[in-house]
């Protein structure tokens, strides 16, 4: 019996400016499914990713997000994570002085302690073995684990670090926020292959992307298009190809959406 992440009529705005961004998003993702979310800049894709993960910069004004029927909107970002939700960041922040390995071990322990308050956490040799396996699987050099979190990482390294975190935490649902952005072809291939290895019957994923090229590696079951804070079109992999070829203008015309403001 797989888990379900269900987003119902979700409305959200930027907490500070009260500018509405999401205007009634509906989406259901089952464990094992791969969903791609496409759409022009400013359509609300990243906001959706952040709202799912519980970023306090955004305020939900209506609707709900249910994880196996339970509303997670009252949970903090940490609780959601421990419940099995993961966000691969578009712009991962730097945490000086904290090694990737150290950080991940605490994250693993936070999960173990949430399940069992008496838990002493994962034994270090066991953790090191596990992390090493994940790094080998993703083709990541072992020295990576000893580096400070995202400090001096190239664009590709940052994204690979996100994928490594995802591999270590084994979420039920992963949202990948433009994990393919800012990468050259080789880096994209490496990251996409990593994502491909992690998708499977145990994980549902929502891949936010501008481009078809990510989807050449990770074949989506469903493709959605977001426009002006709503999902306006859903279909199979062919929809992504169609967008690649024709752009978004036909959808704007169809749904009467305004031209996006210049970035």
């Amino acid at each position, binding site marked *: 019996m797989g888990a379900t992440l269900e987003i119902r009529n979700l409305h959200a705005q930027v907490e500070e400016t009260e500018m509405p961004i999401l205007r009634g998003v509906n989406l259901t993702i089952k464990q094992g499914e791969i969903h791609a979310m496409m759409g022009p800049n400013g359509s609300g894709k990243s906001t959706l990713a952040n709202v799912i993960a519980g970023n306090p910069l955004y305020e939900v004004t209506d609707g709900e997000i249910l994880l196996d029927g339970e509303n997670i909107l009252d949970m903090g970002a*940490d609780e*959601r994570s421990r419940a099995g939700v*993961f966000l691969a960041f578009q712009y991962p922040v730097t945490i000086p*002085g904290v090694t990737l390995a150290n950080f991940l071990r605490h*994250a693993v322990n*936070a999960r173990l302690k949430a399940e069992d308050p008496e838990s002493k*956490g994962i034994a*270090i040799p066991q953790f090191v073995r596990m992390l090493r396996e994940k790094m080998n699987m993703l083709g990541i050099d072992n020295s990576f684990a*000893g580096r400070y979190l995202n400090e001096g990482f190239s664009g590709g390294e940052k994204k690979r670090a996100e994928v490594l975190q995802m591999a270590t935490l084994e979420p039920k649902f992963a949202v990948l926020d433009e994990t393919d952005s800012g990468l050259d072809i080789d880096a994209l291939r490496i990251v996409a292959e990593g994502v491909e290895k992690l998708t499977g019957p145990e994980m549902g994923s929502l891949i936010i992307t501008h481009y078809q090229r990510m989807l050449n590696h990770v074949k989506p079951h469903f493709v959605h298009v977001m426009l002006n804070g709503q999902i306006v079109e859903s279909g199979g992999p062919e929809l992504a190809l169609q967008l690649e070829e024709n752009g978004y203008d036909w959808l704007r015309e169809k749904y009467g959406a305004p031209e996006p403001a210049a970035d």
Partner: protein
Amino acid sequence: MSEMDFVQSEKELTQEESALRDVRGDYDELYGFHDDDVQYKYVSEPGLDEKKVREISKMKNEPEWMTDLRVKAYHEFLEKPTPQWGGELNEIDYDSIYYYMRASDKAERDWDEVPPEIKDTFDRLGIPEAEAKYLQGVSAQYDSESVYHNIQADLEAKGVIFLDMDSGLREHPELVKEHFGTVIPSNDNKFSALNTSVWSGGSFIYVPPGVHVEMPLQAYFRINTQNMGQFERTLIIVDKDAYVHYVEGCTAPTYSSDSLHSAVVEIIVKEGGRCRYTTIQNWSNNVYNLVTKRAVCEKNATMEWVDGNLGSRLTMKYPAVILNGEGAHGEVLSIAFAGKGQHQDAGAKITHNAPNTTSQIISKSIGKDGGRGSYRGLLKIAEGADNCKSNVVCDALLLDDISRSDTYPTIEIDAKNVTMGHEASVSKIGEDQLFYLMSRGLSEDEANAMIVNGFLEPLVKELPMEYALEMNRLIQIQLEGSIG
């Protein structure tokens, strides 16, 4: 490559894990307790006058030159005005302070000879256990006097001297007389004058030429009595090409009225020698900590101060290095944590008196719950001290909007071809950083602690493992905000 790096990160993990796991309870429970049943052998009445100064000297059977020096210093203390440029010192009530209290007859070499209730205190603080595991010598001071002092026999055989200062004066009068007060004269400042007049305890260390003391020597300073004044005096002489690492720790019971800790530490590092002096200051929040520390370096000598200030009500301490010989190097690494009601006015002073000398100051301060951290630094490059290099970095991290950080750097350069860098930054924990860490399952407290530990990591990794653990643990306690 990777294998090695990975092993290192495993080591870091171990530290961090123990640091987080060991933290239970608060300062009062761990350090803030006091013994009521200690039988003091001698207690001087509160307050100070010349008669008391002479009495302390007489009781210690000191040579006349020391008595005279004490009396001279006492008058200098009276004459010098209270400094108004740093922390708030005007509330110190000198008349209510006990200037001398002795709890045992002498410094023992066997813990079993130490009065049991005092030994219990040090057991509770983990000192004998640490000594057995990773120290080559330990000194334990309780209020005014050392109650325990021991050094491993093999070091003694090599001619290393590690004694409490009183025994040092008795057993090596010429060596002490030659150096005592030469680095920090009694009239250097009001508190060095006070210390010189009433000093008691502290360490006397001599390392002969070429001798490397592999494991640290440690002194632990414990205040037990309310309104206590502790005035230890330390003199370290590192001879040519010798090396020693000296570590000091300190704690006190939590009382509602204030205690005063005013130490003087003088260090002489001769040609090619190296001395590292690590302090983990963890006084309770009713202690004024006013300490003068200074080292002189001869040619190619190195002095490193590693200074962690976590406790006290007010700390004013600026470890100094005077680089007198060509090629000498001075370094100050300073960590300060200022919590509720605390002011850490810390920093460093480095004087380049010779050409081709180098120095580095790294200061990191953290403010929380309205605490105040100040960096006060003096970097002086004297005329003729050409081709010197110096680098100063001071960073502050504030955990809330009510804490405060100030930087007061002073730089005087009178030489040619000087390379110098100065960077200062104040940052706050970013909401984006918290969200990032929390999105991986860490609670807000854990995320904060992780960012703080990361901020301090460049300094903590300079500490030997055991002290790094201790430092992480103490910071964790501070973060939990349980110190009253």
